[in-house]
């Protein structure tokens, strides 16, 4: 197990290092002078030179890369040009919205998808299967902002249970903040749940035709216990893989939902930074997302080993 862990950690570290080279190189490839690009045509040469120095653009590429990567390691992401604050402050502020949002959405989508997948798989080919997979098909097809609008209409306009948008901040208390995140999380979760339910169903259908399911039934185990006790855990590996991919999407791919609900999240930050050519922010947020994806993949890999004893002993 320790060997498996060490191997996975090493792979994660190497991936992160390579990704940082790619992100840095992208900035190098941007045509023209990044400082000039950021400041626009009307900026004076002095301003450009100042920004160049501030961004560490003087010196050779290797030296600049090492300087930049070193700063990243000490969590020094530099200063945002447009916001005039350290990028780290900007990012932590936005993560306080995006991270809980992503986690709630993931929890909701899992809570919906796994029971639906189990139900559909155990009623394979029957009406219940057809109906739930039809609903899942719809969930995949309908864009999440449409769900968002429907949810706002139902819960905010009509029932008046939850706010229609905005974020009061965690300072306003946990409950009001959570209430503000609930509808966007649900809107994000529904399409994800639809995908996950389909994956769960197909993984379970495969597992249910395995010999050891027959052995469990020959033991006299009732269907429900066979499904939960034997089949589900064996079907988890593809499900966990998809969940890992979804989390990365939920963290940053939420620009539209954040706009619908007026949430100051990471997605909006990156969108604004791109339109305002705030390359320092873009670069930092992209690195942060890359690191998150790698970390989530690491967790997914480790959970494989937790689920499957063969991986524990083989590695």
């Amino acid at each position, binding site marked *: 197990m*320790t*060997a498996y862990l060490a191997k996975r950690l090493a792979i994660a570290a190497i991936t992160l290092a390579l990704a940082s080279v790619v992100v840095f190189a992208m900035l190098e490839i941007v045509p023209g002078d990044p400082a000039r690009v950021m400041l626009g045509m009307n900026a004076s040469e002095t301003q450009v030179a100042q920004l160049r120095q501030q961004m560490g653009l003087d010196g050779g590429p290797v030296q600049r890369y090492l300087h930049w990567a070193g700063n990243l390691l000490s969590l020094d992401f530099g200063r945002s040009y447009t916001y005039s604050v350290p990028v780290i402050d900007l990012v932590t502020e936005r993560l306080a919205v995006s991270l809980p949002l992503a986690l709630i959405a993931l929890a909701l989508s899992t809570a919906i998808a796994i029971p639906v997948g189990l139900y559909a798989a155990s009623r394979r080919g029957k009406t219940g299967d057809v109906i739930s997979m039809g609903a899942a098909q719809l969930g995949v097809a309908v864009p999440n902002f449409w769900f968002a609008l429907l949810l706002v209409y139902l819960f905010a306009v009509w029932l008046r249970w939850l706010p229609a948008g905005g974020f009061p901040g965690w300072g306003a208390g946990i409950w009001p903040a959570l209430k503000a995140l609930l509808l966007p999380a649900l809107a994000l979760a529904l399409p994800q749940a639809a995908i996950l339910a389909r994956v769960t169903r197909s993984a379970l259908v495969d597992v249910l035709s395995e010999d*050891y399911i027959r052995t469990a*039934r*020959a033991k*006299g*185990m009732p269907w429900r216990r066979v499904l939960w006790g034997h089949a589900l855990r064996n079907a988890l590996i593809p499900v966990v893989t998809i969940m890992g991919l979804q989390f990365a999407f939920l963290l940053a791919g939420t620009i539209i939902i954040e706009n619908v609900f007026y949430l100051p999240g990471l997605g909006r930050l990156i969108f604004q930074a791109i339109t305002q050519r705030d390359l320092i922010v873009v670069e930092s947020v992209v690195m942060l997302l890359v690191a998150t994806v790698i970390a989530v993949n690491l967790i997914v890999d480790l959970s494989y080993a937790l689920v499957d*004893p063969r991986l524990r*002993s083989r590695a």
Partner: protein
Amino acid sequence: MSLLEIENLSLSIGAVPVLSDVDLSVEQGEIVALVGESGSGKSMTALTVMQLLPHAARTSGRVLLDGTNLLEASEEHMCTLRGDDIGMVFQEPMTALNPLKTIGEQVAEGIRWHTRASRAEAEERTRRILDRVGLPEAKFPLSRYPHELSGGQRQRVVIAIACALKPRLLIADEPTTALDVVLQAQVLDLLRDLVAENRMGLLLISHDLAVVADMADRITILRNGQVMEDGEAAQVLSVRTHPYTRQLAQASTHVPEIRAAAAHNTLDSPQAPLLVVQNLTRDYPGRRLSLLRRGAPTRAVDDVSFSIAPGRSVALVGRSGCGKSTLARMILALDRPTAGEIRFRGETLTGRSEAELKPARRDMQVVFQDPYGSFDPRQKVVKLVTEPLHLLEKPPTGTERRDMAAAALAEVGLGSDALEKYPHEFSGGQRQRISIARAIITRPRLVVADEPVSALDVSIRAQILDLFADLNARLGIAYLFITHDLTVARAITDEVMVMEEGRIVERGLTHAVLDDPQSGAARELVSAAPDLKRALERRLREQG
């Protein structure tokens, strides 16, 4: 009243009839064998008793267990019977256990469910039954996972699960087909003892007449879902009134006529050897224990030397895991030896590049065990059979390729209409013919065959053995037959090499080695191998 009474059982799945009017009974303490070839409905009969049939299955007739008709029993009622009153052992031990649960959990689960015993109590009973099936806790703690056990050990766990609650009826569906002969003998002994101890009824499903002759009190022979003959086992198998029984019995001890006539009585050949293997060794690196430490390497093949003369047919026999397949892979240059040398037609193969190996590959082809898994299902037969032709000096053109494929198919008894078909359109025996056609299309001088008939029914097996013998006689192809089945070795080979723990421990003319084995390994194999004639003689002697 019998323990199990099957009356007029008919079964269809969708529109396909599987069983029609099957009658069968099992008394307490009795072993009844259900025999037939694949597709005859044996397993479906067992699954009907367990009520584990596919959803589309429709049944009629009666299946009485102690007077209760199982066909009318509710699923809840069946759950109380399965695992408690009826236990079942399956064919494939490698996949019959849940890979994510320990063996202790898997045995205890049924005990707890049926007896409502406490965790500790169930564990105690689990320990006892695992000990009884030959997995003592000192060597096989309950915390072991299935992948840490061998096939034979896993089958013991499956038997422990089935017998944990001393069921009144045990159903064993080909319980030893996936095991080597020595393990087979051990598992059959275990089943026999458990039946005697607990006065269980055993319904033994098998395709192997020799096993059945040895084990069963009564026998029912099934063909295409219909009972052909039933009665006292030794009686049915020795008198052979029914033509189908006779056909099965003859096929299972079949020796190709060409071979029976030919004399291959000397070990030494005047010709220069075709294949020479010298001091061949293969080590596999040990399991990683920590980041920097590895366990000791495993020696799969240990200092093996032998040679094969042109046109000779040589068997390589041994228990599973003895290194047979590793040795074959090295000869086929699919795996690199750790040490030693392989010479084929006088040229060294070891350490050569793929390009340098090309002429050797042309003269050396392979036939695998599983005729279902060894073809790309999306390619037509013409493409599959002509695959090795790129090895020729001058790769043939389109029409030449077709002609060569048709000729190779004719050689193995298939018409040229097969060229445009896909593998799934053929039966198992026909597919094995196609893989033989693929092997001989380059006119090789050596064919390595890895258990080429063990996945086939006895009558098909007899035909394929005839084909091998015929090709050997007509085309002078030498064979290296890897098998654990001594009947096959006897039927088709001139010489036998017995392998044990990576070494060749005995070598000689086939009949000499099998009639009078010298080494421990060979004696073990010979005495464990089921033999129809011997079993029948013993049974008839016992009955007077």
